[in-house]
């Protein structure tokens, strides 16, 4: 049943995405091509990575709105290291550790200090952005080495090293949430924290793990960001956290925790990215982007809401139908049992 619901949302969104592609394809021939697919894929990498981490946090019934700043901070750490002649591999490792530490800080605030996650991560959203600006002195980091930019270049089959890295991240998170006991704990903690604690699950550990994973993934997104555009502006990652949350909701991840899946986030992110690319292709002025993206988001959610209500109704009807036919078709036992009962004043009255 749970699977059905989750898949149902993914299926709805998938259907809408395919339909949108077909319609745009008709309106603008040439849109449906491998090169478009390649563009959408590389454009979606940052959001995909951040969204994946956000999903893990939301599953545990928390929220992380600091991932944009974590992205910026770790990208800056990477850039500064690289421009000070640190090798690419150690720089990437340190950058990821930096993301993990930022996530750990969030996790500790939420668990040990019992700060509601929305407040804790709103605080660190500012804090991490501030640290980033202090590190750079407010300047952009430019002239990143070629070795980093190479990671974002498409190879012979149109796939970059970063695409492979994101694919591995997707597969990894999918395998963990879907097939490991620890992964199930994420769902359990989000579904009913008290129950999870009661069943002997280390709730704090699970919550901290989710934040740390989100931090690492945001740092990975920072690497992708830096590699793709070749420099690091001050506002790197600004607002990506809200987009990531929207993509999660679109992909069927419940903000109340306890339900959601990697395929859902995947489709949600692709959907949001393809809207952007389609608008470019349809030559709609860029200032329409936010309006259209918002409207489409609402439309999909409304549609999905309708579908859900219909499904729930069907389930209810099925559940209560158990009694109904037994009465009409099986009327014989009823008078038999009635006879056992003594006549009552009420029956006489009728």
């Amino acid at each position, binding site marked *: 049943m749970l699977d059905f619901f989750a898949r149902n949302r993914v299926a709805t969104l998938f259907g809408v995405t395919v339909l949108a592609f077909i319609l745009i394809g008709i309106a603008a021939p040439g849109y449906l091509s491998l090169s478009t697919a390649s563009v959408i894929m590389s454009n979606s990498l940052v959001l995909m990575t951040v969204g994946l981490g956000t999903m893990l946090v939301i599953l545990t019934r928390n929220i992380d709105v600091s991932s944009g700043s974590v992205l910026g901070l770790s990208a800056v750490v990477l850039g500064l290291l690289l421009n000070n002649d640190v090798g690419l591999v150690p720089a990437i490792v340190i950058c990821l550790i930096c993301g993990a530490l930022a996530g750990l800080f969030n996790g500790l605030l939420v668990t040990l200090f019992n700060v509601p996650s929305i407040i804790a991560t709103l605080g660190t959203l500012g804090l991490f952005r501030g640290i980033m600006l202090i590190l750079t002195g407010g300047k952009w980091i430019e002239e990143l080495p070629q070795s980093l930019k190479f990671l974002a270049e498409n190879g012979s089959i149109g796939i970059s090293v970063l695409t492979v890295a994101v694919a591995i991240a997707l597969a990894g998170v999918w395998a963990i949430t879907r097939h490991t006991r620890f992964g199930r704990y994420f769902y359990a903690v989000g579904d*009913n924290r008290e129950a999870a604690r009661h069943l002997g*699950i280390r709730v704090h550990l699970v919550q901290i793990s989710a934040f740390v994973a989100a931090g690492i993934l945001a740092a990975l997104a920072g690497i992708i960001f830096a590699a793709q555009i070749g420099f690091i502006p001050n506002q790197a990652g600004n607002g990506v956290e809200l987009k990531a949350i929207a993509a999660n909701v679109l992909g069927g991840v*419940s903000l109340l925790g306890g339900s959601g899946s990697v395929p859902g986030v995947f489709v949600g992110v692709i959907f949001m990215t393809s809207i952007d690319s389609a608008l470019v292709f349809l030559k709609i002025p860029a200032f329409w982007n936010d309006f259209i993206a918002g409207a489409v988001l609402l439309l999909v959610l409304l549609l999905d809401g309708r579908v859900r209500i219909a499904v729930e109704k069907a389930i209810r009807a099925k559940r209560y139908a158990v*009694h109904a036919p037994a009465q009409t078709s099986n009327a014989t036992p*009823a008078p038999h049992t*009635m006879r056992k009962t003594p006549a009552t004043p*009420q029956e006489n009255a009728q």
Partner: protein
Amino acid sequence: MERNINDATAVRVNDIWKSYGGTSVLKGVDITLLPGQVHALLGGNGAGKSTLMKSIAGLVNPESGSIEINGQTLSNASPAAAQALGLYLVPQEAHILPNQSVLENICLGLRATAKSLRGDIENLVADLAVKLDLDAQAATLEIADRQIVEILRGLIRKARVLILDEPTSALTPHEANALFDRVRQLQAQGVGIFFISHKLREIREICDVISVLRDGAIVLYGALDDYDDQQIVEAMTKAAVNSPLTTPQRRQNHQDFSASACVLELDQFSGEGFHDISFDVRAGEIVGLAGVVGAGRSELAETLFGLRPSSGGTVRLLGHELKKRTPRHCVDAGLVYLPEDRQQNGLFLEASLAWNMSGYTMHRLGFFPKSRRETGEFAEFREALGIKCESPGQPAGRLSGGNQQKVLLAKCLAANPRVLILDEPTRGVDVAARNDIYRLIHQLAEKGMGVLLISSDFDEIEQLADRVIVMAHGHQCGELSSHAINVDAIAHLAFESGAASHA
């Protein structure tokens, strides 16, 4: 039992102290449980039973004292640590993960996979003679099924020590007996069991040893056979008991209500989970609606009160047809419903007691509700119902189960109803509070209120009801009045008819 008893206590609690906000809840409690022993634990509301058991299960950290489980000290209390030592607490209020399947709910936290345990769980389900769809989403479970999930969690864990906190409060007698068989099997395997219950009959049936807690201290301990019911109840309530609390008096004279005015009348009423229900409730009469869990009684009540859609039939309240059924219309027309699940549907747990009391009458209070009047009214109910609380501003969630139930009753009565539907009014309520509630129900009926009492506790129905409607599988399958009302007759109807309609 065959093991050396000296080093094989299942649980040994030594001088446990715990206080909340300055009031001591546990004052140096010692308690010991041997393997293969079923140890009854009794006590009134707020006596400290739950806190004691939660300390043993690692859910609460006591301030001082030590706890040993299977010979090992429980340090650094956490549920995980207690479970690692072989202990599981089956709580009174089931902890459910609504988005997961029933199977996942049972297996979560175990090392083995759900798939590999499926067979074992199916056997347990069959042993307990309950019906449970393991693949259903847990959110769809009724409250009784949720409790069964908790019990299954306890059984599947192969714990060496089990704590059962009122395990039968949502079970039918049939299911309860099946559970007791299971408990005896576990006992024979050397599992030690703490059994918390308010039903002395149950305790007599399966327990060996009894401890009674009062005000955070053990006031009675020994072999169960050494004490009679009166002694046990006196130990619980401290004050010498004048009225025999164990069996509250049944209404003496079975009046004939056929002459009284008809306050509630159902005709061929149908809805989700019940069909063609026709009966009436007269002024001053207590009509019991008996049946096993899942018979459609709560659905009927919720539909009457406008919480679910109906699919046919008519309802007449005080002689007028009740066409528009929303909770607000019902309350204004004089029909009030006390829901089964007080935590989920009954109380605003964070809100003050006075606010909770005006829950049904909020719309009558005007744009600026006068809190002084509310507090005054609450003081009256506090006195009348014997609600134990610190102040009217206290959050309802802090009260014990029995007192919460009394606040819920105050909420219903504040609306001044003519017909009161009570759905399991004494679920999870201790003996003393239960008797208060029984007495109150009698008083209300004597004042001319029509009471529809839904209960799975057939004893309760026998004690209170003037007339009984029995439901099974959504159908009305019988009616008993005056002297024909007894537990056996009700059970006979409820189970027989169920079996018949299944054939």
